[in-house]
Structure formats: C-alpha cells, structure tokens
C-alpha cells in the first residue's frame, strides 16, 4: 500500500500499533475506541504521537491543542490532523 492510499486514521493506527506498544488485537483498534479510558495512550505516548503527527503530516500542533478531547479516539486525532492541514 502506498502512502497516498492510507488515510490519516490508518497512519495513526499503524503508529499506535507499531511504535506505542499497543497490546490488543489490531482489529480492535477501531476509530472510536477510547484510547485514554482504555490506557492505550498515556502522557509520554501522547508526546511521542504528537511528534510523529507533526513530522508525518508536516503540521504544527500547538500545545493548547494537546488536550483530552482531541486525543480521545483515533477518529478525533485524525480530525485534528485534518484541521491542521487545512489551516
């Protein structure tokens, strides 16, 4: 699969599985899984994810955008990426 065919959500999912030590089955990592409730993300993983998003999507994520509601789910994070790309 080339980069162009993957959506932002796919990239985020891949990063969570491969780099953030996701322990569940990849197919359980749906767009609406509660990442913070389920313990998939913690403070340090969030920082790693922000750095990845900035580099992979060539965007700048202000610290003020790094809040719980933006990182609740893969879909929410993908929404943040889309908003930043449009900005």
């Amino acid at each position, binding site marked *: 699969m080339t980069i162009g065919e993957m959506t932002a959500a796919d990239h985020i999912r891949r990063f969570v599985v*491969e780099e953030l*030590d996701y*322990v569940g089955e990849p197919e359980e990592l749906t767009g609406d899984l509660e990442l*913070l*409730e389920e*313990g998939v*993300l*913690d*403070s*340090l993983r*969030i*920082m790693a994810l922000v750095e990845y998003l900035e580099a992979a999507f060539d965007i700048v994520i*202000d*610290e*003020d*955008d*790094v*809040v*719980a509601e933006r*990182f609740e789910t893969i879909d929410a994070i993908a929404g943040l990426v889309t908003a930043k790309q449009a900005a």
Partner: protein
Amino acid sequence: MGERLLHDLVTASAQRDAGAVAVVDGDRSITYGELDERSSRLSALLAAAGVRRGDRLGVLAEKSIESLVAIYGAMKAGAAYVPLDPSAPPARTGFIAGDCGIRVLASPAGLARTWAPLVEAGAPLEHLVALDAGDGTGLSEAVPAGATLHTGDELRAHPARVAVRTIDDDLAYILYTSGSTGAPKGVMVSHRNAMAFAAWAADEFDVRGTDRVAQLAPLIFDLSTFDLFSSACAGASVHLVGRKAAMFPAQLRSFVDYHEITVVYAVPSLLTLLVERGKLTPGSLPSLRLVLFAGEVFPTRHLAALMRLVPGAEYANLYGPTETNVCTFHRVTRVPADDDPPASIGVAIAGDEAIVVDDDGRVVTPGEPGELYVRGATVMQGYWGDPERSARTLVAPPGVSGPREPAYRTGDLVREEPDGTLTFLGRRDNQIKRQGYRIELGDIEATILQHPDVVECAVSAVPDDEAGARLVAHLATKNDLDGKAVRRFCTDRIPRYMVPDSFELLDALPKTATAKIDRARLAKQAATAGDSHT
C-alpha cells in the same frame, strides 16, 4: 486542632463552616457539611451490611466525590479503606482484594463490568456499593452471584449514625505497592500514622480554609493523603484532577488557572511535563503559592525552569517511601543552577527521626553513606498478612536506648551533610521509580517468568529524563515466543506503568563468573542501545 482520627477532621471542618466547599469534581461540588453527612449515612449503610471495626473497604474507582464519601464512610464505620486502581488488570486487583479480605467494595456503576472478573480473580466480594447508581436499574446482571448491591437511593434512605468508636492505633488505610516477588504488598497505616503527616504538613505549609488544593495523584498513591487529609485539617477545598486531565500539560495549566489553585503536590515527572509542554511563560499560574513534590528525583534543570516560570510559589521536596509516608523534607528557597545536584531530601519532619546505618547495622559518622532508617509517628504498622516481611523491615533502631519503637529500613542510601541535611544517593536494591510509581524489577521479572515459554529474564531500568526510567526486558525464550506476546502477557497481569517499554530477545542471558545473570552488563547494553526492540 485536637482531632486524632482522619474522619473527625471532616466533622470538625463541617462544624466550623458547614457551607465551605470540601470537594470539587468537574462541575459538581460538595460542602464539608454534606461530605460529613453523606459519609455518616454511608457508615450506617456499611454497618447494616455487616462491616465491623477492623474490616477493609475496597474503593475501586477513579477519584470522585463518591470515592471520597466512601473513604470517610469506611473510616467512620471503623474500617480501613483500600484504594484499588481501576486501570490495573483484574488479576492484580483480585489478588489484593483476596489478600486483605475485601468483602465490601465501593465502585461506580461505570465500572460494573469489572466486578465479576474480580471475583473470578479471588476477591471475596459480598457487598457492592455503587453510590452513583440511583436505584440500580440495569446493574443486576453485573453483580456477581451471592453479592448484594447497594445504591445511591439506599444511601439517601439511611439515617446517619455517629462514627464507630475507634482509636488512633486502628488502621485508616492500606496501600499496596510493588513487591519483589511478583505479588504486591499491603502497607498498613494507622490513623495516628496518617494524622502525624497530615497535621504536620498542614501546619508546616500553613494550609488554610482559603486554600484550593489540586488533587493530582491517584488515590492508590500516598501523595493523595496530603491532598485529602491536610486539606481536611484546614477545611480547604480539594479539586479533583482526573486521570485524563493529568496526562495533558496544557489542560493542567488551564485547570490551575480556572480553579485558582493555590497548592499542588505532584510527582516530578508531571511537573516536568508541565514545564516542557505546558506553555508556561514567566509569571504563569499566579494563583499557586505552594508546590510540593515527591516520589522521585526532580531533575534540577526542570525544577529551576519551573521556579523561574512560577516565581510566586514556595517549593519543597518531600521524601519518604509509602511505609513512612513523608518522613523528611527540604524547602528549596532559591532557584538552583541547572547543573546543581538534585534537591536535598532535607531533615526529618516533626515526630520522625532519620538514622543512617552501615551494612553492619551501626550508626555511621556524619558524612559517611549508609542506609536510611526512619523511626517515628508516620512509620507504618507493617505489611498486611506478612509478619515475616514486617519483621525484616521494621527493626530495633540502632543507637537508640530506652523504649524502642521500631525503625523502618528504607533501602535508600543517603549521606548526612555537615549542615545536618540528608542527600539521597540511590537504592540498595533493584527498586526504581517511574513517573513516581515505585517498582521492584524483581516483581516484573517474576511475572514474566510465569510464562511457560520464558527461559530466562532480567529487567533493566535506563534513566530517562521525562519518565524517570525506561524499562527493558531481556529474555531468552523457547517455542518462538516473541516480545509482543510477552508484552501482552504482562499487561494482563501487572499495571501499565510496570510493563517494560521494550523486549529484547537473546539466545541466552549473559552470566557472571559465578553463573549469575550479568545484570550490570545487561543494564549497560540497554543504556547504550538507544531505540527499543519490540
């Protein structure tokens, strides 16, 4: 302040000013009068459910108004509260509940799905108290067979009763910490122990009714005892910071500003995140008057940065393992240089005594390194159900004559400086700190070694500026067992903060000349390896 029991602090604060805000939980709050009343009703409900003096009440909940009602209700019923981590695997929580015989559990309806797995894991649950469940509709399926559900409606119908008579030597709470053999151990703290710290801190740091204290640490952490009980001493308001909000520095900054928080007590890794990612500018967080930190070494440059950015606050380093709660402290009065050594752990708090002892059990001369023994009012009663371990760590105090209250062996190496203050030098054993959590590497190793396809295992801790430590598991396995499977094995059994960050597969672990696993070599490899192997 003449109170000797923790729950009497709430009653006394309610008598002084019933309308004063006790707890703020999101957009809800409760006054001291209401907290006193509701916890008294709960103690009556608990008594009716068979809770007796000396029992344990489990509190399996995120922090909330209901959690605090449960904590005070338990103590008013003569029981000790045992906070349980809702994000920990059921196997571990079930073990704890079985270990200290938790028959009654306070837990919100939102966690109902975790109740049955707890029973399967060994929790002897007979009563569940879900204070947020109105009449319990929809919960009957979640209640394990043989257990009775008690709800918020039932609480409202229960008349309050006076607290069961207890004395200050009765247990107030039990906190479970990482043990070295794969099983957590329960630190028993009496009202006298807890009060000695809470009252000292309220006095030393001049906590007042006008203070607004952020409650950051999880309830399973002894830092929370300052937030709850020192605040209750003074009638200050406690502002609960949820687990999620504490993960986001910018959100934490907004929280402090919005609630005009005056006091925070946090682990350094959280304050480091706030400094690094909280977008603070000089003069930020003007409401803060006091910043207390404990649980691990605060990297000096981050402490210095925080002190420059928030110059209006006072700063103090509090030291002490769970077994002693805070036993020494040091006020940081001027901004250190970035390359200064970490903050001193200072001097013993009022009522405690610090003794530095060599390997032969003799008190060292000042300036010589040794193990810190602590004696005094804050020192725990022992480990629950483990008199042997208690006797190993609570020992006759060296160099003290007369009545001999035991001293606790901390396992921490310290040195007394010429000015009488103590410098923390490190650990005697394989215990480390990570995001403020105390972890025995042997606990993780024992867990991994339970896997039938793990042949050998050692865990190294690599110092990490932000997290405190990064954990690397070195493994020799058979039957093609890979790191990913071992990681999953761990997350089913131990809390996330104990799960290694990376798993390194080796044909065999290196050995020393005496055929022991060469931990020093593995630790060195892990430190130089850089990126993780998952």
